[in-house]
């Protein structure tokens, strides 16, 4: 009897469905966006026949869109920075704090991830709105006369984005700190380093990979966030992701929308690469 070639090809059948799924529905569609960005705009259809560079020309000739990319990047930077500052101490505590506190803290950091993004953004509209809890409380206490502008602006978007993405900053930093041998810090202390020095010279540099991962994750997530900016920013402040989705869904400008999406992705990627290089240099030095 002929031995079937199962032995060699059998295992490949295990990965085949996943490979086909990712190939057909992830790789091809991503390549398709690039093609789409060079297509002619259509009349009454999402796109027309033929190819053009016009979609990119429209982007570069209209300062409105460039300004919007800059705003989006700026919101991304601030969100990332605030997440880092707020998240690092929490990550440290989760990694090194008392164990009773740790399990609870870990659950508290993870639980927001289980609540849908629409609901979390909605929670912020209840808090930040002109008639929201914060403004009413402050008015009630007589601290302010009129409502503070907390929503429908970049401030509100950043507050909500920080909330949504903070766990993505805390978790990588936490695992980086967990990976540091505590005896290194103890050794530094025994050699006379102060708490601050031991943190600055030992813990912080060794946790840089976690910081890098967290920052990149949060930055990329905030550039591409759609729900939060569109619910909190309303019609007044639009980030690039909101403009892109509007261009695709509301006005059916698929080629131009693709060009916008790609321009945002490319600028975002450039900053990620620069940041990656800088941090690698830092921890080699």
């Amino acid at each position: 009897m002929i031995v079937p070639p199962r032995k060699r090809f059998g295992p490949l059948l295990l990965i085949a469905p996943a490979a086909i799924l990712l190939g057909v529905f992830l790789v091809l569609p991503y390549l398709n966006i690039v093609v789409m960005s060079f297509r002619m705009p259509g009349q009454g259809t999402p796109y027309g026949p033929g190819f053009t560079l016009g979609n990119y020309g429209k982007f570069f000739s209209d300062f409105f869109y460039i300004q919007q990319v800059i705003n989006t990047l700026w919101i991304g930077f601030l969100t990332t920075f605030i997440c880092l500052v707020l998240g690092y101490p929490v990550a440290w505590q989760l990694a090194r704090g008392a164990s009773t506190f740790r399990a609870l803290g870990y659950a508290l950091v993870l639980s927001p991830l289980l609540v849908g993004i629409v609901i979390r953004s909605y929670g912020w509209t209840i808090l930040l709105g002109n008639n929201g809890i914060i403004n009413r409380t402050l008015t009630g206490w007589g601290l302010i006369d009129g409502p503070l502008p907390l929503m429908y602006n970049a401030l509100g978007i950043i507050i909500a984005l920080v909330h949504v993405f903070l766990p993505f900053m805390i978790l990588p930093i936490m695992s980086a700190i967990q990976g540091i041998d505590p005896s290194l810090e103890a050794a530094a202390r025994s050699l006379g380093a102060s708490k601050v020095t031991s943190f600055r010279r030992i813990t912080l540099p060794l946790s840089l990979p976690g910081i890098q991962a967290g920052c990149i994750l949060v930055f990329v997530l905030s550039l591409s966030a759609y729900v939060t900016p569109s619910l909190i920013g309303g019609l007044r402040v639009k980030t690039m992701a909101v403009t892109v989705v509007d261009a695709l869904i509301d006005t059916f400008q698929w080629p131009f929308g693709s060009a916008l999406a790609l321009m945002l992705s490319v600028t975002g990627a450039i900053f990620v690469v620069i940041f990656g290089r800088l941090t690698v240099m830092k921890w080699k030095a």
Partner: protein
Amino acid sequence: MSKPFFTVYCLIIYAFLLAPIAVVVIASFNAGAFLTFPPQGLSFRWYLVFFNNEVFMRAIRTSLWIATLTMVISGIIGTMAAMFYVTHAGKLKETVRVAMLAPLLLPEVLTAISLLFFVYSVGLGTQNLVGMIVGHVLITLPFVFINVSASMESYDPAWSLAAQSLGAGRFTRFRRIMLPLIKPGVIGGCLFAFIISFDVFTISFMLKGVGMSTLPIQLFDYLRTNFTPEAAAVSTCSIVLTMAVVVISEKVLGLRIHRF
């Protein structure tokens, strides 16, 4: 930083993380017609409005249906891929891992856009659920993969070989040896896929057909024009549902779900 100060700092951050969620839950019991804080008396009024709102109920049914289908498909494909990854990938291990995690690492909005174009280019359109389910499977696949491959870490291929030498066929080996060992990972991964699919917004939003809404989409549409506590009641039910899935899997089934 001194210790008490540090503890207080962390507590403030935890409060910050929970605040918007707690606010939604509290607001849902508001007796008044508008969102006010503190609530004007407690009532289940908005829950009744919600349960009698056919639009939201239909959206919940759609969401549950899609999440179930997604869970089954993603569970099967993800488990198979994890089995390949642990036992057969060899030199390709890192490549397989990165590829399987790719949907998680790529921006969701870009994946959603690319899928929208794609289903139109191949003539699938958004008139049926195919595009949306493909999107949900893509986005949930990494979670099944992570959980199943984590549960297989302690798996020894020798066990399977031993069973084979005793005459067990391919399927019997899977059913009697592999499956009992990886069961916690499979169940955990599937439940997590269910939750993610139930909550995911952007992919559903881009790939939804006319008159076909999942719960997050319906909620989003509602929130653009309405400010009644009904949305809070809807949100609270959704939160309770996902939390119930997690608590049941972790406390009752004793599973450890891996999210990352």
